[in-house]
């Protein structure tokens, strides 16, 4: 019986395993150094905040794995010998595979800051990072101030987490506005204000210069590049993005770039070795996508795709229309299609914001045709299915605004804003 070995028990690896089991009777082993069972990485924050316990973040009950004959192994793979199809574990021992799927995810970025490896300096990605955080910042007595470096999705989550324990947070953001590399300015500035409303000390256009140690080798302060200001702190959160977790592959013969290089079939240059999820890097970007997509949903889709290929139905990874979501403190964000921070050539943005400063949308339109390209929505839930269909049907923005209420996904009895949005849109069109 063919033995499929998957390194990594995150959403990508587990999706692959589940779909291989659906399609075949192959022997499946998932290896993880992180936890015994699959858990939802995106839910780590809720464990620290006390909304859930670790066990609640496991999407499947523990019996699921043996019932579906998916073997779980807790080990760290230190080396791959693709010649004789053998894995070497850090604690000794080996395992043979017939087909190998690399799904090892990411690790937090470190950009060579002085002091970046001191005690009290950490990222937030793995379960071990969460345990570390409980040691570094259990409460506001032990951690009198935290400094977060990097204004993206993980940074703002970490700020929210620490805030629930009343730990004062200084949030250093390189850009002139929060996540402004991705979000258009109207949205980004709304989130700036929302962050400040939570009493987070948000510092825009601010870079980390260095982290200063105390006599025990623990971080005691940071220095800000622009101002030279020294900020005393007990925790430094490094949340300036992530990069593929592939150090163990250096001498494996597998072609590496920033991630594991794969073709559209998610195959590496080595026969019978595949890579999916955060750690995979496409040779060529697909459409407007980045060559490395570190997103929950794309990890899941790659897992589903590679399962088909491995089970004899070789198909390309062909993601549909882009979508994503996040939550910034109390404001939910969803996006469908493409809306860039700055309109690209032949693109224009329509922006509407509610007066309460917690809801807004931005619609991206192709100027020459009036075609709807994408929407960002904050504080108003919208239907994935409807936007997916409108994007496929290449509807105009005019049409989308006119029918926006069909896409509303807010709970019953919620106030609706579609007529306001419509009026603002027509106002803008008249003025333009």
């Amino acid at each position, binding site marked *: 019986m063919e033995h499929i070995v998957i390194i990594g028990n995150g*959403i990508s690896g587990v999706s692959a395993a589940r*779909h291989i089991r659906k399609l075949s009777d192959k022997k499946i082993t998932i290896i993880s150094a992180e936890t015994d069972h699959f858990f*939802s990485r*995106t*839910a780590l924050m*809720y464990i620290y*905040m*006390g*909304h*859930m*316990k670790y066990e*609640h973040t496991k*999407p499947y*009950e523990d019996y699921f794995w043996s019932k579906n004959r998916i073997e779980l192994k807790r080990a760290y793979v230190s080396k791959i010998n693709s010649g004789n199809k053998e894995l070497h574990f850090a604690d000794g021992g080996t395992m043979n595979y017939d087909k190998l799927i690399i799904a090892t995810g990411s690790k937090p970025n470190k950009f060579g800051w002085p002091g970046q490896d001191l005690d009290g300096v950490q990222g937030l990605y793995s379960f071990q990072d*969460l345990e570390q955080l*409980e040691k570094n910042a*259990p*409460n*506001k007595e032990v951690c009198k101030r935290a400094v977060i470096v990097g204004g993206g999705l993980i940074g703002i989550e970490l700020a929210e987490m620490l805030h*629930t*324990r*009343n730990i004062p947070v200084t949030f250093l953001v390189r850009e002139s506005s929060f996540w402004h590399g991705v979000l258009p300015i109207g949205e980004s500035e709304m989130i700036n204000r929302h962050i400040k*409303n*939570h009493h987070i000390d948000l510092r825009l256009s601010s870079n980390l210069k260095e982290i200063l140690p105390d006599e025990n080798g623990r971080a005691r302060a940071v220095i800000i590049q622009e101002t030279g200001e020294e900020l005393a702190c007990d925790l430094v959160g490094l949340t300036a993005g992530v990069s593929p977790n592939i150090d163990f592959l250096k001498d494996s013969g597998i072609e590496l770039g920033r991630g594991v290089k794969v073709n559209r079939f998610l195959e590496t240059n080595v026969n019978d070795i595949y890579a999916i999820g955060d750690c995979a890097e496409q040779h060529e970007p697909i459409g407007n996508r980045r060559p490395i997509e570190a997103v*929950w*949903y794309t990890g*899941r*889709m790659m897992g*589903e*795709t590679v399962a*088909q290929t491995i089970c004899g*139905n070789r*198909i*390309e*990874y*062909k*993601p*549909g*229309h*882009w*979508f994503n*979501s*996040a*939550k910034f*403190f*109390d404001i*939910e964000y*969803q996006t469908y299609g493409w809306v860039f921070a700055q309109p690209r050539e032949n693109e224009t943005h329509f922006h509407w914001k509610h007066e309460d400063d917690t809801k807004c949308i931005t619609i991206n339109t192709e100027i020459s045709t009036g075609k709807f390209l994408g929407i960002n929505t904050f504080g108003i*839930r*919208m*239907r*994935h*299915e409807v936007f*997916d269909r409108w994007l496929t049907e290449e509807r105009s923005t005019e049409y989308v605004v006119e029918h926006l209420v069909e896409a509303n*996904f*807010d*709970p*019953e*009895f*919620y106030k609706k804003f579609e007529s306001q949005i419509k009026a603002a849109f027509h106002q803008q069109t008249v003025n333009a």
Partner: protein
Amino acid sequence: MSTIQRDMSLTGQPPKALNSVQKIATVIGLAGLAIITLAGFNVDFPNKTLWLTISLLAITFGIILFARGAYQGQIEGIKNHGVWFKSISNRGFWGWVAGIALTGFYIILYFFAEYLGLNSDGENTGIIALFDPLSRLLSGNPASQWFVYGTLYTIAIFAFGIKFIWKYRHNRYEKIRTVSVMFFQTAFAFLIPEFMARLNSDSFNLPYYDLKNIWPLNYYNFEQYRVDSFISSGEVGLAFLIFGIVSIFVITPILTYKYGKRWYCSWVCGCGGLAETAGDPFRHLSDKSMNAWKIERWVIHSVLVFVVVMTTAVISTYLGYDPNKYWLTKDVFLIGVGVFLTVLFAAIWYFKREELEKDARYGAIGYLVIIIALLGLHFSGQGNVFIFEAESLRKSYGFLIGAVFSGVIGTGFYPIFGSRVWCRFGCPMAAILGLQQRLFSKFRITTNGGQCISCGNCSTYCEMGIDVRAYAQKGENIVRASCVGCGICSAVCPRGVLKLENGPMEGRIEGNDVLLGNDVDLMSLVNNK
């Protein structure tokens, strides 16, 4: 995590710690309870009206002030911070203290009311006497243990309802729903029956009737003494009796078809009302395992069969044999019940057989056979209907289900098993509504395409123990018999994935069944079942 304090104190660090407003509020609320407790130890309060007022106001005000301490000044949104750290809400020391205290209260209430000051002959004493002034004000009669219970129950729904509204003030569905349960409890369960009692005289004697309390939750509604007093109270009484029958056979099916069982369980019902308000801090303690779900299905449907058998037996005892005296004779009634159940079973089997799981089929067939056999025994000359004596059936149902299950376990164990143990495992009304919700209703919880991140907030905060995530992460709609439509899964979802909806029956269960965002060809392969 190892560094979190595991002590039993109410202090500790945020988000576990109580702030100073909450501490003051706790003292005020407990002081109000202490007055009642002292009355229980026969401390004689000189001015009962004054002390009762002080006590009830202190409890109400304490709860509301506690909510203010918790939510005032916070930006609105989901703030379940520290729920699993606090000993009251994580089955810790204070959780057990609260559970044991509540359970003890229910045992005294149901079985040892004399300790509350109930005297079968003569004046009330103790706690019940303390409540006499309020009872006299409302109904003109002295209080009973049930009046004491009803008053405290209403205060709990009212005050914790305000807390709940404060907590979910960003969510209009939750606000409106909570105002609804507060209204139905205060008006229908508490005030109207008391006022109705004022109308009673020798010739007009309505039984205590909470109109929203529908059979079979109100399992005693068709007992002889009640039916007699309905009939003896002329047209008004008859109207009430007819309303009781119409409630379960007409109103319930229509509303459940249109809106799902939530119209009752989380908008109207008193048990649901308490669970949604006072029980809200414990909702996450429900068991989400597959095993719990299996047990739930067997237990709740067994209770339903029990109540049907018991009610049939009880009604048949007071029906006569002579068709000339009254058209509804014992035989007509029993045959009618048998025919009704058989037709109902046949209809479900014919139209919905595909949707029944194996154990549901076994259960349905088994129970139908048992009921028909019991009916058959009666006509074969056996004296008692159903072998058992109706009175002993009624008594054991009242004891096991009415008191122990719904009260002692259902509410007393809130801090241990979560807030909906009774509704999930025991309530026969919920069983009927659930069967219909699963098979003949427009209600469902819709999943938003592929946006689920499997975080688990929905499942964790489902008071009915439904593993919501299991459906959401597959892109499937959630159509479960037990769902009471409280809307909290949708509220706590950080990615806007869940929405309670009433829509067409077609495609209701499968939903999209497509995790959107992926290649269309691949999705047809993945869904190729």
